[in-house]
């Protein structure tokens, strides 16, 4: 009888695996705690090519929205209505011309400037990637120290898709020269504002 690949693989693995060893305890008392996590978050994100607005950011955000609207470019604002069905079903060719997308991130990570956005917040998985310019609104109170703490906060498997974003898309594939704007968004603006907006 010929075994399926599945059976062959599982059998070989079971036969060849070493004796069972233990998982380590991930003790979060051993991982870095920043004196000023928000400041750390801002400096990491700026080092990665993002622009962060912290002071007077509520007003700055409204100005940003008004400016892009005035330019008359294709924009999608998910800050108020992320469950919008209209956006959810748009295909790549319909989103090709998308200039700016506004959305809210669930939480931020101080050690690397990453922000968690789940499918619930983006409504359409393509939006944060296909837009030319991405604008993320984040409540500064949600910023944690490390990725370990981040995974305690979020439920990464709760939705069909989720992503940590830590800057605009970039590449250094030509002679290690940093180029901002590879295949995803060409710029990232982040507004640190509370939930009131």
């Amino acid at each position, binding site marked *: 009888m010929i075994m399926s690949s599945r059976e062959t693989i599982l059998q070989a693995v079971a036969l*060849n695996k070493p004796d069972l060893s233990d998982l380590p305890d991930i003790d979060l008392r051993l991982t870095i705690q920043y004196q000023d996590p928000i400041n750390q978050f801002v400096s990491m994100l700026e080092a*990665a090519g993002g622009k962060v607005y912290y002071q007077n950011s509520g007003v700055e955000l409204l100005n940003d929205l008004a400016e892009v609207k005035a330019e008359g470019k294709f924009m999608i604002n998910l800050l108020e209505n992320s469950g919008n069905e209209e956006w959810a079903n748009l295909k790549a060719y319909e989103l090709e011309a998308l200039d700016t997308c506004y959305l809210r991130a669930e939480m931020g990570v101080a050690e690397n400037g990453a922000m968690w956005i789940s499918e619930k917040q983006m409504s359409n998985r393509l939006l944060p990637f296909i837009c030319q310019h991405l604008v993320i609104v984040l409540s500064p109170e949600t910023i944690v120290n490390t*990725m370990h703490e981040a995974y305690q906060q979020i439920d990464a498997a709760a939705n069909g898709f989720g992503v940590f974003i830590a800057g605009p*898309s970039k590449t250094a594939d*030509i002679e290690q020269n940093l180029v901002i704007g590879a*295949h995803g968004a060409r710029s990232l603006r982040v507004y640190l504002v509370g939930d009131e907006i």
Partner: protein
Amino acid sequence: MSLKNHADAAQEFIRDEARTDWHDETLWFVRHKRDKAVNTLPEWEILRDWASRIKNHTLSNLDYYLRSFEEKAASNGIIVHWASDAEDHNRIIHKIIADNKIEHIVKSKSMLTEECHLNEYLQNKGIKILDTDLGEYIVQLRKEPPSHIVLPAIHLKRQDVSETFHEHLNTEKGNYDPQYLAGSARHHLRERFIESDLAITGVNFAIAESGSFVVCTNEGNADMGAHSAGIHIACMGIEKLIPKTEHLGVFLRLLARSATGQPITTYSSHFNKPRPGQQMHIVIVDNGRSRQLGRADFRNSLKCIRCAACFNTCPVYRRSGGHSYHSTVAGPIGSILNPNLDMKANSDLPFASTLCGSCSNVCPVKIDIHEQLWKWRQVIVAEGYVDKGKKAGMQGMAWVLSNPRVYRISGKIGRWVMRIFPFMVNNRLNVWYKQREMPKAPEKSFRDWFKENK
């Protein structure tokens, strides 16, 4: 297929001295960025230890985790396939393409699909895959394999890229600006993403408890493909598994810092379910991995997370280039993985090292790479895969070094010859003379000197 061995291919690579120096310095710069990133975390060594133990544990219960992953992924609506070898992997993907009458395929970086030679397999059936990682796109246009698993086009200069793009994308001749060149590729590939109906990606981590998988990129190409196309196929080796979501915290902290010195990649995408109306497939591939799992001395090479820190730090890799390793995964880690795939064809690779141990020191999952290189050498010699000259030389050397009298006499003769007839050693027949001056021979040995002066 007859391939040059590492030493011969390296000799060709270093013929252009300026370019060799540039290659060496560029990769050393990446290593330096890694150090800077690592030094910001006081717990770095603790993280390495956790990562190593999580991977060891996973390997020690891998059949359980594979079953668990399969079950959860299937209940999330993902179609799971199993492939024993490269042929199996390629056949599965071809069937999905044929069944769905697919025309436009984009692929983001996946070293596994390179290992399986998927592009060539499909090309022979008249199907073209477009590589979308900028570095891979460049080498694909040039019909070259990647020379580095993280930086696929690191062997090329901007002038090379400019000429390639001028030929294929009709970019301005002589424009060497990386911003312009990358921008042209972006523009061209956007159209391909939008028209694509099938996207292939790799997998960085697969989570057993949730059936999810994580893909990390800086360019956003994996996401542009996967979220545009109606079908997404993710290809993973059986060793990509980790037990729990919380373990991602450990690995995502290590991966990008080790790879490029970034604190994290721009995008860390967590795929749990297909989007409505989308088909999502996972191909779980063995291709020799379960065999490696059974080799006690070499099994922990399966902990590798493909960061390439060992490439960037390796004095031999930096000065011989990725292509001289004639394998998908070059560098020190490739030199311990490839002999498992084909011992004869890769018998030269474990010798392409100084055994300095720098690779083991930077490895984020604590693989004892340099010790495995040394162990592979012993296996390869025992199996008779080492060339006759090297074998005879080593046996002669072993005889001399284990007989004190013979050793003293040969030392005396050697010193005399080098003093009186230097051309006897300073000639092309002596491989030790290649690219170095032989030292001046001392009058007497240390032993004689010590006897007189003690």
